[in-house]
């Protein structure tokens, strides 16, 4: 059977392809593949080619026509054409075996499995197939003809190969050997053939070096070999047979064991992975320690001193049998081991309820709890408010309510009102029993220390005593007592007579701060009149009062008189000048008649709440008066009438009479206070005319800067003005003197002109200079008296571009130098240091001072805390596994908590430890 093949020259190699690869004996192809070598130099002609083929050992008959074509473009022989493969084959086979061949594909490997080729042969086969495949590929690439070889698979080729070669297997081994010998003998006849035979025969495969038939030496025993026998035996079940069939189908071979170095490498790799993973567990702890603000070595030290009980207890568990026994008993008896939210009994009762009830109850409980916490929070918030005003308002509101109630009560049922009164009375009794306002408290003691030197302290103490007196007075008890009850300490200031706040007006009339109170709450002023009068009454009634009281009275009297005097003076002035009518009248009214509140209500500046306050107060006082009246109408009415007269007498008397040594002292004090006025005024350089007006404004409502600055100055003649003018003159004089002194000291220096000169010099230096490069006599006539020509001068004078405008151009009194100052740059950081990413960051860290001059002690301590603290004489052990365990446990806890808490350094900072402790 003739097999048509294709032979062609590809890239200088002869390539052979057959149409029907399935029928092409692999060996023969292999042989031809072997001759695929560069021959293009030789085979210029067809004959040459065939000769070269023949010369290469291939059985190739020249009778076959092989049309050759010359590819002119690439100077290569590109020959292709058909040839009769059968001939080649025939020749091959004859040369190798000379016996009958089975070219039939159907004779599969199964037929002659035990006679299949050796491993070596197999290898070669593989190579062959590989080569063949390569050939096929190239064929595909070749533009000549496309052979449809895709459907040809490797196995087929393999089978083919196997089929052809083992031709010797057909007969018995003996036969084969004989045949072989015969062949050899025949081939020995022709010298050429012999050589070829030796080349072609694969005797080494069949005959081992030990001259033993090594047939099937390197063969693998296939599963099919073993199965064959099984297939014949009927005892084997069909199932196993099918299994075996399946197994047979999947031909898998076990890989050969790895070499020793390879196995070792793998082992090492695995071990390394393991240990590196193990080591990586420390990563987080290492990172944390790096970030920690402070590390105290040795790590994990227990803080010295006793531990808080909770810390000890919470980690405690019953371990010993005895403990466990006790716990068991406790649990049997339903005793709480830990602090439970609900006791077992409560829980049971909850369970006993129906579900709805329980729900309702629970909701109620929740609501109650929420409300409670809300009120608590509110109370806490209110308590923490420091504003006195706020508390005042609160108290006022309370009082108002009370008054309202009381009013109603008086109308509706006087019995309960009486009861209320009795309650108040009780309060009074309590006050009498207690030492609350008797100068015995801590505050009073501290004041007592200072009382010797400080008038204010003394006065404050006296006021407290007075409060006490007020509260314990039977006459005026009721309401003041109630106030005391209402809000212990905070109400104290309210109880004080108001002249406490208004510092003696005589002392410093120029100071608006001191006088602000006077006219601020004119209604307030009504209040003190009561205790004052009461005091007066007391004085007149019983003479057992202490000397301090009289002194106080005297002082008060003095103040009042002086105030009156001044007001009178002012009134006179006003009458005389008639300027700024409004202000003056207001002032007058405020000063002269304290009880007048109407004008204040009219004043726009007064806040609404103030008004309210006043109203309340007035109400309160009214009530107070009423009660008082109702209580002691009969006895007191006459007495009050009597009292008013002596009071007046006393006031008048104080003007002229000095009764005792104390009074003398008082006078001295006043005199001392008076000279202070001009001093206080002196440093204020504001014009005097506006001052007078200002003063009045201030006296009313503090300072309103806007008003002060914008309002037109009004000239008023105030009695105090002359002294003030004197002071101002003195100040002016002083300033002049000072100026003179300075002038004298810097007599020779003309600073301003020096500065200007400097600036001019700077500017000059910055200006560009004209460079003249003209060479006289160069290209022209030179000599004495001869100037270079204008043209030349113009040409060689170089002008540089003007510099950018100076920054201080518009600023008369400043020189801005834009040069780099080396003396400064020496102390400056040249480049941004490593950890910082932005210059701003660095600047910020530089700007923040760390010293105790700028920071509080605690802050300094915190800022300057060293990063690592070691203890002298303490051995620092390497980190241990326990640390890791602790760390991981902590992390777990954090993880379960589910909060991205800021991780604490495990060791760590002492302060943190302490913090934790307090938490616990």
């Amino acid at each position, binding site marked *: 059977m003739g097999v048509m093949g294709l032979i062609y020259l590809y890239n200088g190699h002869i390539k052979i392809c057959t149409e029907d690869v399935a029928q092409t004996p692999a060996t023969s192809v292999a042989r031809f593949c072997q001759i695929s070598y560069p021959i293009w130099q030789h085979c210029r002609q067809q004959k040459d080619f065939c000769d070269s083929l023949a010369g290469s050992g291939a059985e190739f008959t020249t009778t076959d026509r092989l049309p050759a074509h010359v590819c002119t473009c690439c100077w290569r022989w590109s020959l292709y054409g058909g040839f009769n493969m059968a001939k080649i084959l025939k020749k091959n086979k004859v040369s190798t075996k000379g016996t009958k061949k089975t070219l039939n594909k159907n004779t599969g490997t199964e037929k002659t499995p035990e006679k299949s080729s050796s491993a070596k042969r197999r290898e070669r086969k593989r190579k062959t197939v590989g080569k063949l495949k390569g050939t096929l590929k190239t064929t595909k690439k070749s533009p000549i003809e496309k052979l449809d070889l895709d459907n040809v698979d490797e196995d087929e080729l393999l089978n083919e190969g196997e089929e052809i070669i083992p031709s010797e297997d057909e007969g018995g081994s003996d036969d084969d050997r004989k045949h072989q010998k015969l062949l050899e003998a025949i081939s020995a006849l022709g010298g050429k053939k012999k050589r070829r035979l030796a080349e072609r025969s694969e005797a080494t495969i069949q005959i081992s070096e030990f001259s033993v038939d090594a047939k099937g030496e390197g063969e693998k025993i296939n599963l099919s070999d073993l199965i064959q026998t099984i297939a014949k035996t009927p005892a084997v079940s069909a199932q196993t047979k099918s299994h075996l069939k399946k197994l047979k189908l999947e031909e898998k071979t076990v890989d050969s064991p790895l070499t020793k170095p390879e196995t*070792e*490498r793998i*082992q*090492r*790799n695995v*071990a*390394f992975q*393991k*240990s*590196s993973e*193990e*080591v*990586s567990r*420390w*990563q987080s702890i*290492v990172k944390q*320690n790096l970030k920690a603000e402070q*590390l105290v*070595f040795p790590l994990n030290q227990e803080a010295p001193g006793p531990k808080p009980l909770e810390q000890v207890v919470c980690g405690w568990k019953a371990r010993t049998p005895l403990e466990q026994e006790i716990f068991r008993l406790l649990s049997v008896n339903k005793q709480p081991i830990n602090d439970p939210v609900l006791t077992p009994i409560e829980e049971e009762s909850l369970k006993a309820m129906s579900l709805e009830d329980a729900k309702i109850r629970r909701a109620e409980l929740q609501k109650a709890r929420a409300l409670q916490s809300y009120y608590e929070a509110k109370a806490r918030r209110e308590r923490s408010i420091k504003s*006195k005003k706020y508390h005042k308002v609160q108290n006022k509101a309370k009082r108002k309510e009370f008054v309202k109630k009381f009013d109603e009560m008086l109308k509706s049922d006087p019995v309960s009102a009486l009861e209320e009164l009795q309650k108040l009375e009780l309060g009074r009794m309590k006050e009498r029993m207690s030492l609350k306002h008797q100068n015995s408290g801590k505050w009073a003691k501290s004041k007592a*220390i200072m009382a010797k030197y400080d008038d204010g302290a003394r006065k404050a103490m006296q006021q407290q005593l007075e409060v006490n007196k007020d509260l314990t007075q039977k006459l005026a008890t009721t309401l003041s007592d109630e106030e005391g009850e209402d809000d212990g300490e905070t109400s104290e200031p309210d109880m004080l007579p108001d002249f406490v*706040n208004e510092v003696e007006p005589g002392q410093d009339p120029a100071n608006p*701060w001191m006088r*602000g*109170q006077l006219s*601020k709450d004119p209604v307030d002023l009504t209040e003190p009149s009561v205790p004052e009068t009461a005091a007066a009454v007391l004085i007149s009634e019983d003479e057992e009062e202490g000397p301090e009281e009289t002194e106080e009275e005297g002082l008060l009297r003095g103040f009042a008189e002086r105030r009156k005097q001044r007001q009178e003076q002012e009134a006179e002035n006003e009458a005389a000048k008639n300027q700024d009518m409004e202000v003056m009248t207001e002032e007058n009214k405020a000063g002269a008649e304290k009880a007048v509140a109407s004008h204040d209500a009219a004043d726009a500046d007064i806040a609404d709440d103030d008004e309210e306050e006043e109203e309340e107060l007035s109400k309160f006082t009214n009530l107070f008066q009423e009660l008082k009246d109702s209580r002691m109408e009969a006895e007191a009415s006459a007495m009050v009438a009597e009292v008013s007269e002596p009071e007046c007498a006393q006031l008048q008397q104080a003007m002229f009479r000095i009764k005792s040594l104390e009074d003398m002292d008082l006078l001295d004090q006043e005199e001392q206070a008076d000279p202070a006025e001009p001093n206080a005024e002196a440093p204020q350089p504001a014009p005097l005319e506006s001052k007078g007006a200002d003063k009045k404004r201030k006296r009313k*409502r*503090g300072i309103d800067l806007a008003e002060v600055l914008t309002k037109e100055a009004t000239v008023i003649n105030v009695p105090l003005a002359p002294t003030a003018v004197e002071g101002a003159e003195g100040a002016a004089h002083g300033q002049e003197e000072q100026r003179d002194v300075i002038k004298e000291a810097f007599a020779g220096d003309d600073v301003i002109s020096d500065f200007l000169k400097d600036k001019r010099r700077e500017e000059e230096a910055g200006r560009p200079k004209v460079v003249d490069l003209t060479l006289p006599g160069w290209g022209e006539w030179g000599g004495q008296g001869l100037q270079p020509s204008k043209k030349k001068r113009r040409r060689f004078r170089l002008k540089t571009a003007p510099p950018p405008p100076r920054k201080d151009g518009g600023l008369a009194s400043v020189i801005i130098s834009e040069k780099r100052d080396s003396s400064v740059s*020496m*102390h*400056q*950081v*040249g480049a941004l*240091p490593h950890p910082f990413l932005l210059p701003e960051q*660095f600047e910020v*860290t*530089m*700007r923040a*001072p*760390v*010293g*105790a*001059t*700028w*920071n*509080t002690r605690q802050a300094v301590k915190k*800022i*300057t*805390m*060293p990063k*690592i603290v*070691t203890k*002298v*004489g303490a*051995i*620092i*052990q*390497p*980190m*241990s596994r326990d640390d890791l365990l602790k760390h991981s446990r902590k992390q777990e806890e954090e993880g379960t908590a589910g909060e991205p808490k800021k991780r604490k350094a495990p060791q760590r900072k002492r302060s943190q430890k302490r913090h934790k402790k307090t938490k616990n």
Partner: protein
Amino acid sequence: MKVKVLSRNPDDYVRETKYDIQRVPRNYDPTLNPFEVPREYTRAMNATKLERVLAKPFLASLDGHRDAVNCMAKHSTSLSTLLSGACDGEVKVWNLTKHNCVRTIQAHEGFVRGMVVRFCGTSFYSIGDDKTIKQWNMEAPGYGVEEEPINTILGKTVFTGLDHHQKNGTFATCGQTVDIWDEQRSTPIRSFSWGVESFSSVRFNPVETELLASCASDRSIVLYDMRESMPLKKVIMTMRSNTLSWNPMEAFYFTCANEDYNLYTYDMRYLEKPVTVHMDHVSAVLDVDYSPTGREFVSASFDKSIRIFPKENRNSREVYHTKRMQHVVCVKWSADNKYVMSGSDEMNIRLWKANAAEKLGVLSHREKLAANYNQKLKEKFQYHPKVKRIARHRHLPKHIFTEAKEHTVMREARRRKYVNNVRKHSKPGAVPMLSEREKHVVAVVK
């Protein structure tokens, strides 16, 4: 209107006894305390200068050895005890507080190659050129009783390095192989070898206590796990490493002292390139030891100096040297982080402060505060050129100074050659620009 009244409570400013410090009410208003930066700058400058003035690190020299000191060992439980082995086989036990030798043992014939104290501190091991491992009792024998080791193991080859496990009764030696020994046995329970080498030192990881590392003569550092039968990995460098030391606080870092004058800190998980290259020495580095805090380490060099490096810095923060100190062979950092001990060729052991300017002894509270403040100031202004110059300046012996200069020149020349000659004239991308860290690793063998 609310009037705020000045209130003065004598409790705030009156001291209770005359020995109290006067209370000074402070006003931190910045307008009242202007120029904070310049003022602090001046203070920082002064602090830096003072630090230099007060930097007197040398504490004591312990002499008594009759040959060069070859190895030292810290006592594991006593801070005041130091052990040293000399080249004549003599082992001495020192009391550091009294600066005297407590005990002398003629332990070996030839060099004492290594010493280590057992974790409990009751005994110590020594190895020598006489192929023996000896275990000694830490307590001296009674008067007139001869010094004798508790145990002696005769090995087949010379041992060159020794280290003890942190918690178990196991120790490791190295010579031709790295051997793990059980204290109870006279043969190693495990021995590792990977190719034919001789090892110069072996060290247990103090944190992950089952890991070891050793320096081999084939320029490699080999990692082991005591539980495995195989070594783990090795990295081969351009030159041989003499010793290494594990970081006691960070389990995966170790630093090796190399013959090429540098020290290399490695992460044992990534041996491809070192984490940091520490370069300042001008001769081979012979020994290295970490501070117990794991933040710094001290290195001893053949250039007759000791240097202290922060673990993440390329350059040293401190250099110690004296006129008489010769090649420093071994160095240790004390377990309380305060002192450094060095043993050198001229038979002396020297005791240094770890922080040269630190005041030793008990500090009063105010002293402590002041020291902290000064430290903070120095830290804050460390980048300012004037401060930096003063803080960095160290006086160096002439030979170190000149050699250092020479080395910078050489390094620069090498770099220039690489960049200008080699790199420029090869195919672009063929010769990569190597960082300093990449230059010194030849290969990592798995």
